[in-house]
């Protein structure tokens, strides 16, 4: 299992801060497609971090157990 973390406006839509996802053979891009289907995330300008590093939304990196994926809406610090 990998963990998906949600932040800001995205967490508001998913109605949770994190959830688990089965990773067998799943690419980052596949994972996003699944979540988009579930939550309609295309409305957001989402950035994706894999283990705390930004990755492309189309990334074909395969997820492993214990990976952490974060879906980040636009940054608003300052």
């Amino acid at each position: 299992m990998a963990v998906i973390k949600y932040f800001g406006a995205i967490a508001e839509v998913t109605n949770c801060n994190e959830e688990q996802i089965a990773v067998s053979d799943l690419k980052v891009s596949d994972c996003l497609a699944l979540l988009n289907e579930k939550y309609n995330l295309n409305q957001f300008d989402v950035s994706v971090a894999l283990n705390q590093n930004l990755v492309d939304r189309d990334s074909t990196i395969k997820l492993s157990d214990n990976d952490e994926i974060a879906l980040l809406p636009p940054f608003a610090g300052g």
Partner: protein
Amino acid sequence: MKKVFINGPITPEFIANSIEKHQTKHSIGAHNIFLGQVRADVINDKTVAGIDFTCYEEMAHPILDDIREKAFKTFNLTCMHIYHSLGEIKAGEVCFFVFVSAKHSKEVYAATEYLVNIVKKKVPIFGKEIFEDESHQWKVNKV
């Protein structure tokens, strides 16, 4: 990993305390401080009462370490501190504090501007603008 995130507003007393700590460093001739203060913006006739900040801390800390390392390489600084609030910060309160110190004044200005802009752009901080009627919208930084 340096402490950056502070629960609640950054108070004038906290800022004074930071300044005071640097008064023992006698090679410093110039400090430059940036403070971000929450504005009571009026958006579609509703007034912002405060901003509720959250952050992806595990991701933010290594990014902040990189930012500091690059800034020390780029600018001739003696000290550098970055603080950002988490939680609800009311209009008029300070939520962002960048503090740069150097031997001479000419070193500090560009460093401060660089740090403010790169933190806004690169650090995963999220802000919920809460209006006086308790409705909200999500803040987006113009890059």
